[in-house]
């Protein structure tokens, strides 16, 4: 036994003018030892490091919060879970259990949704490329197919003709708002008349029924006024279709793009000061719908295709310090066992990185980088961290959106994913990868030693 204090590596923090506040409090580093009430060390012991942890309670709570914010303002609402945000079947099924439709953008995603129990009628099918097989299945089965361009319109007509049916489709619009750069790659432009041409062409063909309009303004939209402007334009177009052509729509899909409580690399203000609440988004999205010239019993269903704002805060990544070093400019460098192949969103966000052990040691600017032998592998740049010994853990949050679906087996395989239930129990929902997962799809020719 010894009563000597434990060794902590030496720190040196230079004081810089402008950073101290009037209360004279130095930088404080918080720590967080648990996720969803479960000790992080226990989870790492069970599933290894690095490890993604999803919190079921947050997933359900966020879904219900957005749904409630919308139904308070409009009677017919459906949320479609954006599959590309997180492909894990367990996660998708949680949303479906809550009542979410599936929003898919490829044949692969369509089949995933079907395997997760979605009927074609519960699937919103978006995207600029829809393969023939899936498009046919979707049209015949009654999925909500959103037309992206004239070539697709013509393909849908051919499929309808071949099968002797008249399927329902929506058309995707793109439009200008005064506050956002226009996403004009997808759909038909509303401002220059292209969308009206698409409707004329669709009606002239006589093979398809127009039952919905869809618009998706962009991603991580912090200015809620853009949604109000989009709703106003879409409603005006819907009213015009009804009055001029007698088209009664059953769906208005106002897309997604709601921001999560993350912080873009270019963003100055922290997320709690810059990200609108669900109520603020809902107000701007929905209030304009009151201008719909529809009788109450014929109001179209409002669909939102959200992903990031629902799931991001529910996901955390535990990573372990594997080395400390000094960079040439004097900054502390910290190597952790999770890199940007696993944490793709590190390219976009300034994630929160906090140690899992409490400390009173002074923090200093630290570059946290991953295990990849690539200069781009930066998990956090200039993060204020206390000294952390090899083997200590840190939590990276929020990371629930777009990491698992965009992660890749580059230099390192991908980590396990676990789900913590509201009662504190936890379960594996994706095991840690092994080498065979990487090579399973490969074929070695016989002359290189492979089988026939």
């Amino acid at each position, binding site marked *: 036994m010894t009563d000597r*204090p434990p060794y*902590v*590596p030496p*720190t*040196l923090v230079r*004081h810089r003018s402008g950073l101290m506040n009037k209360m004279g409090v130095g930088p404080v580093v918080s720590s967080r030892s648990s996720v969803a009430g479960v000790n992080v060390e226990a989870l790492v012991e069970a599933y290894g490091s690095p490890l993604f942890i999803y919190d079921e309670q947050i997933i359900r709570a966020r879904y219900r919060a957005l749904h409630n914010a919308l139904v308070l303002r409009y009677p017919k609402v459906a949320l479609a879970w954006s599959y590309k945000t997180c492909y894990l079947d367990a996660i998708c099924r949680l949303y479906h259990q809550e009542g979410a439709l599936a929003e898919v953008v490829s044949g692969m995603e369509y089949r995933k949704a079907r395997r997760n129990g979605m009927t074609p009628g519960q699937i919103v099918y978006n995207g600029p490329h829809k393969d023939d097989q899936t498009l046919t299945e979707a049209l015949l089965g009654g999925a909500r197919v959103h037309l992206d361009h004239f070539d697709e319109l013509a393909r849908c007509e051919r499929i309808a003709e071949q099968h002797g049916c008249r399927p329902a489709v929506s058309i995707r619009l793109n439009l200008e708002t005064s506050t956002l750069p226009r996403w004009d790659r997808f759909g038909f432009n509303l401002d220059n008349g292209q969308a009206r041409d698409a409707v004329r062409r669709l009606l002239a063909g006589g093979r398809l029924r127009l039952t919905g309009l869809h618009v998706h303004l962009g991603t991580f939209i912090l200015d809620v006024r853009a949604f109000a402007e989009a709703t106003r334009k879409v409603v005006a177009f819907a009213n015009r279709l009804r009055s001029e052509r007698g088209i009664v729509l059953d769906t208005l899909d106002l897309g997604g793009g709601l921001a999560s409580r993350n912080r873009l690399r270019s963003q100055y203000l922290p997320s709690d000061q810059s990200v609108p609440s669900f109520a603020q988004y809902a107000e701007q999205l929905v209030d304009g719908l009151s201008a719909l010239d529809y009788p109450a019993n014929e109001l179209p269903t409002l669909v939102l295709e959200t992903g990031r704002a629902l799931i991001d805060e529910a996901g955390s990544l535990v990573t372990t310090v594997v080395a400390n070093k000094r960079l040439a400019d004097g900054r502390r460098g910290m190597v952790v066992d999770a890199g940007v192949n696993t944490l793709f969103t590190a390219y976009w966000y300034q994630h929160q990185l906090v140690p899992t052990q409490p400390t009173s040691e002074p923090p200093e600017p630290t570059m946290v980088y991953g295990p990849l032998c690539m200069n781009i592998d930066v998990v956090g740049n200039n993060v204020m961290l206390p000294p952390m010994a090899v083997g200590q853990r840190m939590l990276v949050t929020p990371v629930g959106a777009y990491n698992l679906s965009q992660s890749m087996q580059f230099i390192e395989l991908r980590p396990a994913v676990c789900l913590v239930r509201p009662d504190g129990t936890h379960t594996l929902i994706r095991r840690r990868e092994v080498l065979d997962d990487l090579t399973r799809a490969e074929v070695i020719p016989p002359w290189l030693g492979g089988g026939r």
Partner: protein
Amino acid sequence: MNDAARLAQLAISPSGFVFDPHTGGTFTVNATGRLILEGVRDGLGLAALTRHLERRFAPGGADLERDVLEYVARLRENGLLPAGFELH
């Protein structure tokens, strides 16, 4: 002013606040950093500094010699030690 005189002017408080009257710069160091800085000011070399840390802290498997060398380099980079300073 020679190195020893310059180092002697550093004001190091027990709480880890460091003032360099030569530049007006202020710093915060933790307990380990303070021990090393005070040791350097008192003329200790690498081996003596390492032994000093071994006596003051519970053994934890850290590479103390490497930490001392890196820390002295940081003190140099931040102007608390002269550019040409090296531990003996």
